[in-house]
């Protein structure tokens, strides 16, 4: 029913440092801290001063947690301890991505982008990167955390956030949408299509499949 095997579904891979880059910009959200620290360790062992030309933007993310503040502080400290001269922390991914966009506008060729975090965070970051014509050989991303999707309704074009189920009610037009694997990098969203158009009211069972 989900229509799998769709080629546009992004596939991400474990992060590795790219020694060919001159500048390194790392974006992390919540559990994305660990893979970014791994990249920094590789950069430290690589060409002279690539660590000195690195920058980290980090947010603990929207995960409900009693001690989020303390975790964020611990992560920032870890990035600084890893030798990164410029570490910036943000309350949420929106603030982080706004800063990311203004950094890209002021950046020069030679930059490598590393993104680690929940899938929707990666998608939104890569959507901005696409606007700056960053190609796949300049970007590396690793999924960690929630696989919740942004779903774009093909009927009313509203994007419903944080979708964890195979079928979801569109918050724009209240149609019930089947969440497909069709993905748009430009919109950073999966396609949602009315599930009961031909047999109104007949919907398959709703299951949580994007934890």
């Amino acid at each position, binding site marked *: 029913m989900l229509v799998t095997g769709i080629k546009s579904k992004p596939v991400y891979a474990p992060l590795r440092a790219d020694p060919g880059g001159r500048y390194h910009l790392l974006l992390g959200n919540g559990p994305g801290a660990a893979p970014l620290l791994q990249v920094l360790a590789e950069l430290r062992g690589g060409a002279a001063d690539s660590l000195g030309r690195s920058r980290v933007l980090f947010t603990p993310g929207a995960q409900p947690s009693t001690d989020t503040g303390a975790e964020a502080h611990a992560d920032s400290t870890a990035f600084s301890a890893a030798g990164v001269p410029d570490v910036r922390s943000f309350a949420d991914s929106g603030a982080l991505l706004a800063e990311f966009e203004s950094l890209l506008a002021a950046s*020069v*060729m*030679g930059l*490598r982008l590393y993104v680690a975090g929940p899938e929707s965070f990666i998608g939104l970051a890569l959507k901005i990167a696409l606007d*700056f*014509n*960053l*190609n796949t*050989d300049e970007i590396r991303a690793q999924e960690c955390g929630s696989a919740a999707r942004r779903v774009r309704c093909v009927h009313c074009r509203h994007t419903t956030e944080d979708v964890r189920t195979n079928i979801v009610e569109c918050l724009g037009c209240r149609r019930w949408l089947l969440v497909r694997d069709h993905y748009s990098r430009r919109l950073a969203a999966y396609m949602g299509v009315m599930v009961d158009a031909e047999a109104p009211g007949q919907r398959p069972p709703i299951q949580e499949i994007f934890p």
Partner: protein
Amino acid sequence: MTDGQTLRVEVTAIAEVTPLIKHFTLRAVDRAPLPAFSGGSHVVVVMRGANRVYRNPYSLLSPPSDRSAYQIAVRRMEASRGGSEFMHTQLHVGSHLEIAHPVNLFPLDKIARKHVLIAGGIGITPFLAQLEDLHEGAIPYELHYAVRSAEHAAFHERLRTREAGRVRFYHDSKAQAIDYDALLSAQPLGTHVYVCGPAGMISRVIDTARRWGWPDSHVHWEKFSAPPVGEAFEVFLARAKIGVNVLPDQSLLEAIEAAGVEVPYLCRGGVCGFCQTRVLELDGELLHHDHYLSDADKSRGKSIMPCVSRAKCQSLVLDL
């Protein structure tokens, strides 16, 4: 492309733009509109000389919006195998030629945020058509054009007036050189660099860009290799069941064509990979001159680009 699909054109104007470069205007013999093309495209010109046929690639430099005529510029090479010599001495207004359909192996990136074009000498030609498109658009661009001296700067006046503020000339005779580090160290994100010129210039741009962290997808180059002259050798074509002798100043592809066997081709300069041919047997070594096969493929010796590559061998059998 094979010769069955060529366009018949007539030379309608010839101009000498520098002491070494002639500029040809070509129109369809029947005056029908020519096929559309995009900036950076080339055509292969088929030249039927007295004793042999030459097929050389030349960039189209006319505005892509003008389908009434194609324009090409041909530099007379000092060590010409005959092609550029033919173009310079055998053609006159009214001559007929065959050309292959345009092919673009050097297109501009459609979503770049900025274009940096670097030309050396006759390497300006693909950029002339691209500039026609860029001129109309909103994407920033700049052209850096290195030549031996002012009199060798083809299309100097046209560029100086039309691209004022966006073109910079460098004359070897005045010891002016492109500062590649300055040029490539501070370009905005999303810039693409394109280079067409002598081999040394292309490798300088590729090396400098890499040193400043440019990813390969943002670095574009076009270098048509003329087929090098070498020693004669023999080749056997397994499917046609004929032996072919390749002369020292003849390319393997030309020798195969002269024997009446057609091989599909696009660039005839070792770039596109279209004429890739399977090697069935080899006693000796392949002399690869193309820019298409990887180093691993070259050393494996199972494939050859007959447009520019040769062999030094006792026997060579090709899957043709």
